[in-house]
């Protein structure tokens, strides 16, 4: 377990050190008006939506599934809330809007769960439906416009501060909640059992369908909250671009964190590290001034490197070389 998280951790530290070398002030934090500012805080804040979605994704992947629709669901959440708020500046309207959005997200999660657990469609196809259709739904809700709002209560979710940015706190809260629920109840074990061997779990009396259904609903709700953060941060709902490709970042975060796409054993801490690595990487690209046209290539190289050091085969090759050198 410890060993499994060592490499992602080292990768994160290496990235942070790289930033420190390039930008000596990278680690400095300052308080201003009771708010904490600094590059590290920015990394956490910008990574908050990815982390949230990656948490949901971790549990989905642990059941041998995958959820491609999270980006679209995030866009829908933002769209529904902003349209509901409209021109209102009222806190109550904002809260009602967010509540409606999250309930709707839960329903979308039920839909995914129905396709996967109810009809037995392969998860990648089942959630592809909502991935493409979901953007359309968001467009319908916003009537193709970028809906801007001016509501201080709504702004709190993505751009507010309670010493730290609210979005960081929300993400960490959800992380703590998931960790608590999966550890303190039997959910974690049953999810792993279903992921490792669905048929054996069924014959042992595990309600595999309910479990699978639950994780898709949870993933959709996480995506919804992330969508609220993204939309709140800019006080606008952009049906086309909100949460675009975030499902890929989330899946990457889960994989970097050491959870296998084949299902089974998962690690929430690993996912946290994975999400942080991805966000730090994005920040690094800017701080070290990688030319925009090679940004994606740079990211790809780092991701491949991280995945490689985790792969048993690559590690065996590395340690073999080490032995050869020492002897």
């Amino acid at each position, binding site marked *: 377990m410890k060993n499994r998280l060592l490499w992602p951790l080292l990768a994160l530290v290496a990235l942070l050190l790289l930033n420190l070398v390039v930008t000596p002030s990278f680690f400095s934090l300052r308080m201003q008006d009771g708010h904490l500012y600094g590059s590290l805080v920015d990394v956490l804040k910008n990574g908050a939506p990815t982390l949230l979605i990656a948490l949901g994704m971790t549990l989905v992947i642990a059941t041998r599934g995958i959820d491609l629709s999270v980006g679209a669901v995030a866009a829908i959440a933002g769209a529904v809330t902003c349209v509901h708020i409209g021109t209102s500046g009222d806190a109550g309207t904002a809260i009602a809007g967010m509540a409606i959005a999250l309930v709707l997200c839960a329903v979308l999660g039920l839909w995914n769960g129905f396709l996967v657990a109810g009809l037995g469609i392969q998860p990648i196809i089942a959630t592809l439906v909502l991935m493409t259709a979901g953007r359309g739904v968001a467009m319908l809700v916003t009537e193709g416009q970028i809906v801007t709002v001016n509501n201080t209560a709504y702004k709190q979710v993505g751009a507010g501060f309670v010493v730290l940015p609210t979005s960081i706190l929300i993400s960490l809260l959800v992380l703590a909640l998931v960790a608590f629920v999966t550890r*303190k109840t039997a959910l974690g074990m049953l999810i*792993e*059992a279903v992921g490792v*061997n669905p048929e*054996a779990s*069924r014959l042992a*009396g595990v309600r595999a369908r309910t479990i699978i259904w639950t994780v898709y609903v949870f993933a959709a709700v996480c995506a919804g909250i992330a969508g609220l953060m993204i939309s709140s941060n800019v006080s606008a709902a952009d049906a086309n671009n909100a949460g675009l490709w975030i499902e890929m970042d989330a899946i990457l975060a889960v994989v970097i964190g050491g959870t296998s796409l084949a299902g089974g054993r998962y690690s929430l801490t690993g996912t946290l590290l994975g999400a942080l690595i991805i966000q730090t990487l994005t920040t690094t690209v800017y701080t070290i001034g990688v030319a925009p046209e090679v940004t994606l290539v740079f990211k790809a190289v780092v991701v491949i490197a991280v995945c490689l050091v985790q792969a048993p085969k690559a590690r065996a090759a590395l340690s073999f070389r080490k032995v050869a050198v020492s002897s």
Partner: protein
Amino acid sequence: MTESPPPVVEMRGISLAFPGVKALQDVDFRLFPGEVHALMGENGAGKSTLIKTLTGVHRPDGGQVVLGGDEVAFTSPGEAQHAGISTVYQEVNLCANLTVAENILLGREPRRFGGIDFPAMRKRAKEVLARIGVHIDPASSLGEHPIAVQQLVAIARAIAIDCRVLVLDEPTSSLDAGEVAELFRIMRVLRDEGVAILFVSHFLDQVYEISDRMTVLRNGALVGEHLTADVDRRTLIAQMIGRDLGALEAIEDAAEKRHPDGPVLVHASGLGRRGAIDPFDLEIRAGEVVGLAGLLGSGRTELARLLFGADRADSGRLLVDGAPLRLRGPRSAIAAGIAFSSEDRKGEGLVADLSIRDNLVLAMQAARGWTRPLPRRTKDQLVEKYLKALDIRPANPDALVRTLSGGNQQKVLLARWLVTEPRLLILDEPTRGIDIGAKAQIQQLVTTLAAEGTAVLFISAELEEVVRISDRIVVLRDRRKIAELDGSTTGVDEVVELIAGGAAPEKVVS
């Protein structure tokens, strides 16, 4: 047998340690051309490890492997195969979606113009199959054929290359008597061609029928090498387990003393499922051991799955305690106190990547639902109790189940159901592929459970075992229940006659 030809394989002083375990200690092993050599030992004795050392899966820490006079050190199974050592594993490791010919020649397809020469491939496959007397269409897809034929295809694949040594690791565990005979015929053909065959099986009858020589291992160490004709069974078993057969004999006595007259627990009337098993009637009483006898594919497992709700019945009904019970799935059966330990331990039984602890409590936890976790202390108590009661090794609750030997995995699966204190325990092939010591322990457990009032439905391909521990024997043939016999007065021969069918009139004794 004179020892004129030099051994084709000679392993000297092989040692191999895994983290925390000495898997092999200074083991010597010889294999001569043109012999069938049985490797004997309990689970965990080191048979598989020795084989894997020979076939290049593991590299020994010490000792040397000599093949045909030259010392070799294989670093991969591919190298070993190249040197003429072919292996057929217990589970068929082929691709069901490919054709028979593709499977036989996978990775060494005849080529032409940079592509695969399919006609040549089919022709070559046909030749190889003909060599072992199997006549199936090489262009048919492998998945269409029964497991037994797939096993023969695996052997064809093994001998398609010029093979000097053929390793058969429990090839018979999923074959019925006729199929085993066919396999043995093929083994004799290959032996007479000069191939050295290394054979692993838990069935002593088969070992005595086919093997010329045997090597016995215990706890990773060599116990002895004998000509098969020189050792009797009692000696062999004593060497394998280091104790005598008293345990097994005690079980038989216990079974004879029991006369279950408890209330009827489960009553199936006309229960059936099209394509799986014809409608059957069956009564099981509390404290009774009912054995299911029949060939592979006779509907044994199918019958059990209906009783457990793993498959849905499309006719008939099931009464539990006299009240009708509609099984919508395993959960309703579990709620009614029915437990089912599947014959397919890996596929349908255990969750290999979870710990012993998690596997033990899985069924009970599932019944409680995820919101009501078992308290840690209860869990630990249960785990400790069953680790000790069933003598599960290693007795480390955190060990992953896939690292355990077959016998210990079976015990974990059994323990999972014992934890739920079932009233009817269905055991499908609980003793398949496990060593004689573990077998005796499991049989002992069945009799103890029955004495305590649990009903047991016992399924096994080994008729002797069924006859020995059952109070009543239900005989199946061609997916039909054909007879019910009194276990205390019935002998194996009678059951065999019924299963063989045709000649004997259908008689029902109950």
